[in-house]
Protein backbone atom coordinates (compact mmCIF):
# COMPACT_ATOMS: atom_id res chain seq x y z
CA UNK A 1 0.00 0.00 0.00
CA UNK A 2 2.97 2.24 -0.72
CA UNK A 3 1.09 4.32 -3.31
CA UNK A 4 -1.93 4.79 -1.08
CA UNK A 5 -0.71 6.68 1.95
CA UNK A 6 -3.08 8.67 4.16
CA UNK A 7 -1.63 11.61 6.07
CA UNK A 8 -1.75 10.81 9.82
CA UNK A 9 -4.33 13.54 10.51
CA UNK A 10 -6.76 12.12 8.00
CA UNK A 11 -6.14 8.65 9.30
CA UNK A 12 -7.11 9.74 12.83
CA UNK A 13 -10.20 11.45 11.48
CA UNK A 14 -11.22 8.28 9.69
CA UNK A 15 -10.82 6.31 12.92
CA UNK A 16 -12.95 8.87 14.76
CA UNK A 17 -15.72 8.88 12.17
CA UNK A 18 -15.65 5.12 12.10
CA UNK A 19 -15.98 4.99 15.89
CA UNK A 20 -18.95 7.36 15.83
CA UNK A 21 -20.74 5.43 13.11
CA UNK A 22 -20.13 2.12 14.86
CA UNK A 23 -21.38 3.38 18.20
CA UNK A 24 -24.50 4.78 16.50
CA UNK A 25 -25.24 1.45 14.81
CA UNK A 26 -24.72 -0.48 18.02
CA UNK A 27 -26.92 1.89 20.01
CA UNK A 28 -29.63 1.80 17.39
CA UNK A 29 -29.63 -1.97 17.25
CA UNK A 30 -29.78 -2.31 21.00
CA UNK A 31 -32.28 0.45 21.75
CA UNK A 32 -34.90 -0.05 19.04
CA UNK A 33 -37.84 -1.99 20.46
CA UNK A 34 -38.46 -5.40 18.96
CA UNK A 35 -41.75 -4.64 17.30
CA UNK A 36 -40.61 -1.41 15.66
CA UNK A 37 -41.22 -1.37 11.90
CA UNK A 38 -43.53 -4.39 12.16
CA UNK A 39 -46.39 -2.65 10.39
CA UNK A 40 -44.86 0.76 9.85
CA UNK A 41 -42.59 3.33 11.44
CA UNK A 42 -43.89 2.68 14.93
CA UNK A 43 -43.84 0.11 17.66
CA UNK A 44 -46.17 -2.61 16.37
CA UNK A 45 -46.88 -3.94 19.83
CA UNK A 46 -48.70 -0.68 20.61
CA UNK A 47 -51.75 -1.94 18.72
CA UNK A 48 -52.27 -4.95 20.95
CA UNK A 49 -51.37 -2.97 24.06
CA UNK A 50 -54.02 -0.41 23.21
CA UNK A 51 -56.72 -3.05 23.10
CA UNK A 52 -55.60 -4.72 26.31
CA UNK A 53 -55.12 -1.51 28.26
CA UNK A 54 -58.71 -0.34 27.85
CA UNK A 55 -61.87 -2.23 28.65
CA UNK A 56 -65.15 -1.17 27.04
CA UNK A 57 -67.29 0.95 29.36
CA UNK A 58 -70.61 0.97 27.52
CA UNK A 59 -72.27 -2.40 27.25
CA UNK A 60 -74.32 -1.72 24.11
CA UNK A 61 -77.87 -2.47 23.13
CA UNK A 62 -77.15 -6.09 22.28
CA UNK A 63 -75.97 -6.79 25.80
CA UNK A 64 -79.12 -5.23 27.27
CA UNK A 65 -81.22 -7.17 24.78
CA UNK A 66 -79.95 -10.47 26.09
CA UNK A 67 -81.70 -9.91 29.41
CA UNK A 68 -84.49 -7.56 28.31
CA UNK A 69 -85.66 -8.91 24.93
CA UNK A 70 -89.25 -7.72 25.35
CA UNK A 71 -88.21 -4.10 25.88
CA UNK A 72 -85.98 -4.18 22.80
CA UNK A 73 -88.81 -5.72 20.78
CA UNK A 74 -91.18 -2.92 21.81
CA UNK A 75 -88.53 -0.31 21.13
CA UNK A 76 -87.86 -1.57 17.62
CA UNK A 77 -91.43 -0.89 16.58
CA UNK A 78 -91.51 2.81 17.43
CA UNK A 79 -89.72 6.07 16.72
CA UNK A 80 -87.10 5.43 19.38
CA UNK A 81 -85.79 2.31 17.66
CA UNK A 82 -82.41 3.91 16.93
CA UNK A 83 -81.83 4.87 20.56
CA UNK A 84 -79.31 3.14 22.73
CA UNK A 85 -80.47 2.05 26.19
CA UNK A 86 -77.49 3.65 27.85
CA UNK A 87 -78.21 7.04 26.30
CA UNK A 88 -81.16 7.55 28.64
CA UNK A 89 -80.46 5.03 31.40
CA UNK A 90 -76.76 5.72 31.79
CA UNK A 91 -73.86 3.32 31.50
CA UNK A 92 -74.63 -0.22 32.59
CA UNK A 93 -72.87 -0.19 35.92
CA UNK A 94 -70.97 -3.04 37.49
CA UNK A 95 -73.55 -3.13 40.29
CA UNK A 96 -76.32 -3.72 37.81
CA UNK A 97 -74.40 -6.59 36.25
CA UNK A 98 -73.68 -8.22 39.60
CA UNK A 99 -77.05 -7.55 41.19
CA UNK A 100 -79.64 -7.29 38.42
CA UNK A 101 -82.25 -6.14 40.88
CA UNK A 102 -80.36 -2.90 41.40
CA UNK A 103 -82.07 -0.58 38.99
CA UNK A 104 -80.43 1.52 36.37
CA UNK A 105 -80.99 5.27 36.27
CA UNK A 106 -84.66 6.16 35.83
CA UNK A 107 -84.64 9.00 33.31
CA UNK A 108 -86.21 12.32 34.31
CA UNK A 109 -87.81 14.99 32.13
CA UNK A 110 -84.38 16.52 31.67
CA UNK A 111 -83.33 13.48 29.69
CA UNK A 112 -86.30 13.82 27.32
CA UNK A 113 -85.79 17.55 26.87
CA UNK A 114 -82.13 17.09 26.11
CA UNK A 115 -83.16 15.91 22.68
CA UNK A 116 -86.71 17.13 22.28
CA UNK A 117 -86.53 20.73 23.44
CA UNK A 118 -87.23 23.00 20.49
CA UNK A 119 -84.17 24.65 18.99
CA UNK A 120 -83.74 26.47 15.68
CA UNK A 121 -80.63 24.38 15.07
CA UNK A 122 -82.48 21.08 15.14
CA UNK A 123 -83.69 19.68 11.81
CA UNK A 124 -87.31 20.27 10.92
CA UNK A 125 -88.18 16.58 10.63
CA UNK A 126 -87.24 16.03 14.27
CA UNK A 127 -90.13 16.18 16.78
CA UNK A 128 -89.51 19.09 19.15
CA UNK A 129 -91.64 20.85 21.74
CA UNK A 130 -91.58 24.21 23.45
CA UNK A 131 -92.02 23.18 27.06
CA UNK A 132 -94.10 26.08 28.26
CA UNK A 133 -96.55 25.70 25.38
CA UNK A 134 -96.82 21.95 25.84
CA UNK A 135 -99.61 20.15 27.69
CA UNK A 136 -97.64 19.22 30.73
CA UNK A 137 -94.18 19.53 32.15
CA UNK A 138 -94.11 15.88 33.12
CA UNK A 139 -93.44 13.90 29.95
CA UNK A 140 -94.54 10.50 31.20
CA UNK A 141 -98.03 11.74 32.06
CA UNK A 142 -98.90 11.14 28.42
CA UNK A 143 -95.88 9.50 26.78
CA UNK A 144 -94.40 6.04 26.97
CA UNK A 145 -90.65 6.38 26.38
CA UNK A 146 -90.28 2.91 24.85
CA UNK A 147 -93.28 3.41 22.58
CA UNK A 148 -93.09 7.10 21.69
CA UNK A 149 -95.65 6.82 18.90
CA UNK A 150 -98.38 6.00 21.41
CA UNK A 151 -99.85 8.92 23.33
CA UNK A 152 -102.25 8.41 26.20
Amino acid at each position, binding site marked *: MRFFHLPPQIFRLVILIFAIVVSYLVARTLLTPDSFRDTGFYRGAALAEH*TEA*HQPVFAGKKACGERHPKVIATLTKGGHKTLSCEGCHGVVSQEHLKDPDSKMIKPTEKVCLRCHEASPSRPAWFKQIIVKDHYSEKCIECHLPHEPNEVQ
Partner: protein
Amino acid sequence: MLATFGGVFAGLLALPAARALKKKFRKSPAPNGYDARQHKWLMCIDVDKCIGCGLCADACKSENHVPEAPHFFRTWIERYIIKKPAPDSTAVRGEVEVDSPNGGRGGFPPTLVPRDEILKSFFVPKLCNLCEASPCTQVCPVGATFDTPDGAVLVDPTYCIGCGFCIQACPYGCRFLSPVTKTAEKCTLCYHRITRGLRPACVDICPTQARVFGDLKNPLENDPLQAFVQKNKVNTLKPHLGTNPRVLYANLDKEVR
Protein backbone atom coordinates in the same frame (compact mmCIF):
# COMPACT_ATOMS: atom_id res chain seq x y z
CA MET B 1 -5.60 -2.64 9.14
CA LEU B 2 -8.13 -1.18 6.76
CA ALA B 3 -9.31 -4.64 5.95
CA THR B 4 -10.09 -5.41 9.62
CA PHE B 5 -11.90 -2.11 9.94
CA GLY B 6 -13.88 -2.89 6.86
CA GLY B 7 -14.70 -6.31 8.25
CA VAL B 8 -15.94 -4.97 11.58
CA PHE B 9 -17.95 -2.29 9.81
CA ALA B 10 -19.59 -4.79 7.52
CA GLY B 11 -20.33 -7.04 10.46
CA LEU B 12 -22.07 -4.27 12.33
CA LEU B 13 -24.07 -3.29 9.30
CA ALA B 14 -25.26 -6.84 9.09
CA LEU B 15 -26.94 -6.58 12.49
CA PRO B 16 -29.87 -4.35 11.45
CA ALA B 17 -30.16 -6.30 8.23
CA ALA B 18 -30.49 -9.53 10.21
CA ARG B 19 -33.11 -7.94 12.45
CA ALA B 20 -35.10 -6.77 9.45
CA LEU B 21 -35.05 -10.24 7.98
CA LYS B 22 -36.12 -11.80 11.28
CA LYS B 23 -38.98 -9.31 11.45
CA LYS B 24 -40.26 -10.26 8.02
CA PHE B 25 -40.80 -13.79 9.19
CA ARG B 26 -42.27 -12.97 12.61
CA LYS B 27 -46.01 -12.35 12.89
CA SER B 28 -47.27 -9.37 14.87
CA PRO B 29 -49.01 -10.28 18.12
CA ALA B 30 -52.71 -9.94 17.37
CA PRO B 31 -54.99 -8.86 20.21
CA ASN B 32 -57.66 -11.53 20.71
CA GLY B 33 -56.88 -12.99 17.33
CA TYR B 34 -57.72 -9.68 15.67
CA ASP B 35 -55.71 -9.07 12.51
CA ALA B 36 -55.41 -5.38 11.76
CA ARG B 37 -54.78 -6.06 8.08
CA GLN B 38 -58.22 -7.63 7.56
CA HIS B 39 -60.18 -4.50 8.40
CA LYS B 40 -60.48 -0.94 7.24
CA TRP B 41 -62.66 1.13 9.54
CA LEU B 42 -64.34 4.36 8.64
CA MET B 43 -66.77 6.71 10.33
CA CYS B 44 -68.96 9.12 8.36
CA ILE B 45 -71.27 11.86 9.54
CA ASP B 46 -74.69 12.88 8.27
CA VAL B 47 -74.91 16.53 9.30
CA ASP B 48 -78.65 16.75 8.65
CA LYS B 49 -79.36 14.09 11.23
CA CYS B 50 -77.46 15.61 14.14
CA ILE B 51 -79.77 17.11 16.76
CA GLY B 52 -77.00 18.42 19.00
CA CYS B 53 -77.96 16.35 22.04
CA GLY B 54 -74.31 15.92 23.01
CA LEU B 55 -74.70 12.27 23.97
CA CYS B 56 -71.72 11.36 21.79
CA ALA B 57 -69.40 13.84 23.50
CA ASP B 58 -70.50 12.56 26.92
CA ALA B 59 -70.21 8.92 25.90
CA CYS B 60 -66.70 9.47 24.56
CA LYS B 61 -65.61 11.09 27.79
CA SER B 62 -66.92 8.15 29.83
CA GLU B 63 -65.70 5.45 27.49
CA ASN B 64 -62.17 6.71 27.07
CA HIS B 65 -61.69 8.26 30.51
CA VAL B 66 -60.90 11.61 28.94
CA PRO B 67 -59.83 14.16 31.57
CA GLU B 68 -62.86 15.98 32.97
CA ALA B 69 -61.40 19.48 32.61
CA PRO B 70 -63.75 21.14 30.14
CA HIS B 71 -61.69 21.74 27.05
CA PHE B 72 -60.36 18.27 26.29
CA PHE B 73 -62.38 16.41 23.71
CA ARG B 74 -61.80 13.49 21.43
CA THR B 75 -65.04 14.31 19.68
CA TRP B 76 -67.24 17.35 19.98
CA ILE B 77 -70.17 19.12 18.34
CA GLU B 78 -70.18 22.60 16.86
CA ARG B 79 -73.29 24.67 16.32
CA TYR B 80 -73.37 26.87 13.24
CA ILE B 81 -75.83 29.73 13.09
CA ILE B 82 -76.01 31.48 9.75
CA LYS B 83 -77.73 34.81 10.18
CA LYS B 84 -79.87 36.64 7.68
CA PRO B 85 -77.97 39.23 5.63
CA ALA B 86 -78.04 42.89 6.69
CA PRO B 87 -81.03 44.67 5.14
CA ASP B 88 -78.92 46.96 2.96
CA SER B 89 -76.52 44.30 1.72
CA THR B 90 -76.82 42.29 -1.47
CA ALA B 91 -75.40 39.20 0.17
CA VAL B 92 -77.61 36.15 0.29
CA ARG B 93 -76.42 34.96 3.68
CA GLY B 94 -75.23 36.94 6.64
CA GLU B 95 -72.57 36.30 9.24
CA VAL B 96 -71.87 32.93 10.72
CA GLU B 97 -71.69 32.31 14.44
CA VAL B 98 -70.04 29.14 15.63
CA ASP B 99 -70.09 27.91 19.18
CA SER B 100 -69.29 24.73 21.00
CA PRO B 101 -70.12 25.27 24.68
CA ASN B 102 -68.33 22.52 26.58
CA GLY B 103 -67.97 20.65 23.31
CA GLY B 104 -71.71 20.09 23.19
CA ARG B 105 -71.67 17.95 26.33
CA GLY B 106 -75.02 17.93 28.05
CA GLY B 107 -76.65 19.50 25.02
CA PHE B 108 -76.50 23.10 23.88
CA PRO B 109 -77.95 26.01 25.85
CA PRO B 110 -80.36 28.15 23.82
CA THR B 111 -78.48 30.54 21.58
CA LEU B 112 -78.44 34.26 22.27
CA VAL B 113 -79.03 35.01 18.61
CA PRO B 114 -82.66 36.11 18.28
CA ARG B 115 -84.86 33.65 16.42
CA ASP B 116 -85.82 36.08 13.67
CA GLU B 117 -82.18 36.74 12.80
CA ILE B 118 -81.42 33.11 12.08
CA LEU B 119 -81.44 32.05 8.45
CA LYS B 120 -80.15 28.53 8.96
CA SER B 121 -78.65 26.65 11.82
CA PHE B 122 -77.29 23.15 12.27
CA PHE B 123 -74.95 21.01 14.33
CA VAL B 124 -71.74 19.43 13.07
CA PRO B 125 -70.10 16.63 15.04
CA LYS B 126 -66.36 16.55 14.66
CA LEU B 127 -63.69 13.94 15.30
CA CYS B 128 -60.34 12.78 13.98
CA ASN B 129 -60.67 12.90 10.21
CA LEU B 130 -58.52 9.79 9.65
CA CYS B 131 -56.46 11.54 6.99
CA GLU B 132 -54.67 9.47 4.39
CA ALA B 133 -51.85 12.01 4.25
CA SER B 134 -52.09 12.82 7.93
CA PRO B 135 -49.88 15.75 8.93
CA CYS B 136 -49.90 14.58 12.55
CA THR B 137 -48.18 11.25 11.90
CA GLN B 138 -45.74 12.93 9.56
CA VAL B 139 -44.37 15.36 12.13
CA CYS B 140 -43.98 13.06 15.10
CA PRO B 141 -40.26 13.10 15.88
CA VAL B 142 -40.22 9.70 17.58
CA GLY B 143 -42.80 7.67 15.68
CA ALA B 144 -45.25 7.63 18.59
CA THR B 145 -48.32 8.44 16.54
CA PHE B 146 -49.10 6.38 13.52
CA ASP B 147 -51.69 5.16 11.06
CA THR B 148 -52.79 1.64 11.89
CA PRO B 149 -53.22 -0.81 9.01
CA ASP B 150 -56.94 -0.84 9.73
CA GLY B 151 -57.59 2.86 9.35
CA ALA B 152 -57.35 4.35 12.81
CA VAL B 153 -54.72 6.84 13.97
CA LEU B 154 -53.30 6.01 17.38
CA VAL B 155 -50.80 7.40 19.84
CA ASP B 156 -48.35 5.08 21.57
CA PRO B 157 -48.40 6.46 25.12
CA THR B 158 -45.16 4.72 26.12
CA TYR B 159 -43.31 6.31 23.23
CA CYS B 160 -44.84 9.79 23.12
CA ILE B 161 -42.56 12.44 24.55
CA GLY B 162 -45.28 15.06 24.85
CA CYS B 163 -43.65 17.58 22.52
CA GLY B 164 -47.03 18.62 21.13
CA PHE B 165 -45.90 18.83 17.53
CA CYS B 166 -48.75 16.62 16.36
CA ILE B 167 -51.26 18.74 18.26
CA GLN B 168 -49.99 21.75 16.40
CA ALA B 169 -49.96 19.94 13.09
CA CYS B 170 -53.52 18.64 13.08
CA PRO B 171 -55.57 21.19 11.12
CA TYR B 172 -58.84 19.84 12.52
CA GLY B 173 -57.94 20.47 16.13
CA CYS B 174 -58.73 16.96 17.20
CA ARG B 175 -55.69 16.34 19.39
CA PHE B 176 -54.88 17.52 22.87
CA LEU B 177 -52.21 17.03 25.50
CA SER B 178 -53.57 14.96 28.34
CA PRO B 179 -52.82 16.65 31.67
CA VAL B 180 -52.80 13.21 33.31
CA THR B 181 -50.33 11.30 31.14
CA LYS B 182 -48.63 14.34 29.57
CA THR B 183 -48.83 12.62 26.21
CA ALA B 184 -50.89 13.44 23.16
CA GLU B 185 -54.40 12.01 23.03
CA LYS B 186 -57.00 11.86 20.33
CA CYS B 187 -59.94 9.94 19.00
CA THR B 188 -58.86 6.33 18.59
CA LEU B 189 -62.12 5.25 16.94
CA CYS B 190 -62.57 3.42 20.24
CA TYR B 191 -59.90 0.99 19.12
CA HIS B 192 -60.41 -1.13 22.20
CA ARG B 193 -64.05 -1.58 21.19
CA ILE B 194 -63.70 -2.16 17.46
CA THR B 195 -61.04 -4.82 17.97
CA ARG B 196 -63.56 -6.62 20.17
CA GLY B 197 -66.33 -6.46 17.59
CA LEU B 198 -68.19 -3.54 19.16
CA ARG B 199 -68.76 -0.12 17.61
CA PRO B 200 -67.31 3.16 18.90
CA ALA B 201 -69.23 4.52 21.88
CA CYS B 202 -70.34 7.66 20.02
CA VAL B 203 -71.83 5.62 17.18
CA ASP B 204 -73.69 3.33 19.55
CA ILE B 205 -75.18 6.13 21.57
CA CYS B 206 -76.19 8.50 18.76
CA PRO B 207 -79.99 8.58 18.82
CA THR B 208 -80.47 9.66 15.21
CA GLN B 209 -77.71 7.59 13.58
CA ALA B 210 -75.93 10.73 12.43
CA ARG B 211 -72.66 8.87 12.92
CA VAL B 212 -72.22 5.98 10.55
CA PHE B 213 -69.54 3.40 11.15
CA GLY B 214 -68.44 0.42 9.15
CA ASP B 215 -65.71 -1.84 7.89
CA LEU B 216 -64.81 -1.19 4.28
CA LYS B 217 -63.19 -4.59 3.91
CA ASN B 218 -66.02 -6.60 5.50
CA PRO B 219 -69.30 -4.83 4.81
CA LEU B 220 -72.30 -6.25 6.66
CA GLU B 221 -75.64 -7.11 5.14
CA ASN B 222 -77.42 -3.72 4.79
CA ASP B 223 -74.19 -2.09 5.87
CA PRO B 224 -75.03 1.47 7.02
CA LEU B 225 -71.75 2.81 5.67
CA GLN B 226 -72.38 1.44 2.20
CA ALA B 227 -75.91 2.84 2.27
CA PHE B 228 -74.50 6.19 3.37
CA VAL B 229 -72.05 6.51 0.48
CA GLN B 230 -74.59 5.32 -2.04
CA LYS B 231 -77.30 7.69 -0.92
CA ASN B 232 -75.49 10.92 -0.06
CA LYS B 233 -73.44 13.54 -1.77
CA VAL B 234 -70.45 13.91 0.49
CA ASN B 235 -67.80 16.42 1.32
CA THR B 236 -64.74 16.55 3.53
CA LEU B 237 -63.46 19.18 5.91
CA LYS B 238 -60.72 21.54 4.69
CA PRO B 239 -60.06 19.75 1.41
CA HIS B 240 -57.74 22.58 0.34
CA LEU B 241 -55.12 21.48 2.88
CA GLY B 242 -54.34 18.27 1.03
CA THR B 243 -54.65 16.00 4.05
CA ASN B 244 -57.06 13.69 2.19
CA PRO B 245 -59.40 13.12 5.13
CA ARG B 246 -61.28 9.87 4.93
CA VAL B 247 -64.19 10.93 7.12
CA LEU B 248 -67.03 11.92 4.83
CA TYR B 249 -69.68 14.47 5.77
CA ALA B 250 -73.06 14.42 4.06
CA ASN B 251 -74.92 17.70 3.63
CA LEU B 252 -71.95 19.78 4.71
CA ASP B 253 -72.40 23.53 4.38
CA LYS B 254 -69.60 25.61 2.91
CA GLU B 255 -69.34 27.69 6.11
CA VAL B 256 -68.20 24.71 8.16
CA ARG B 257 -64.54 25.15 8.97
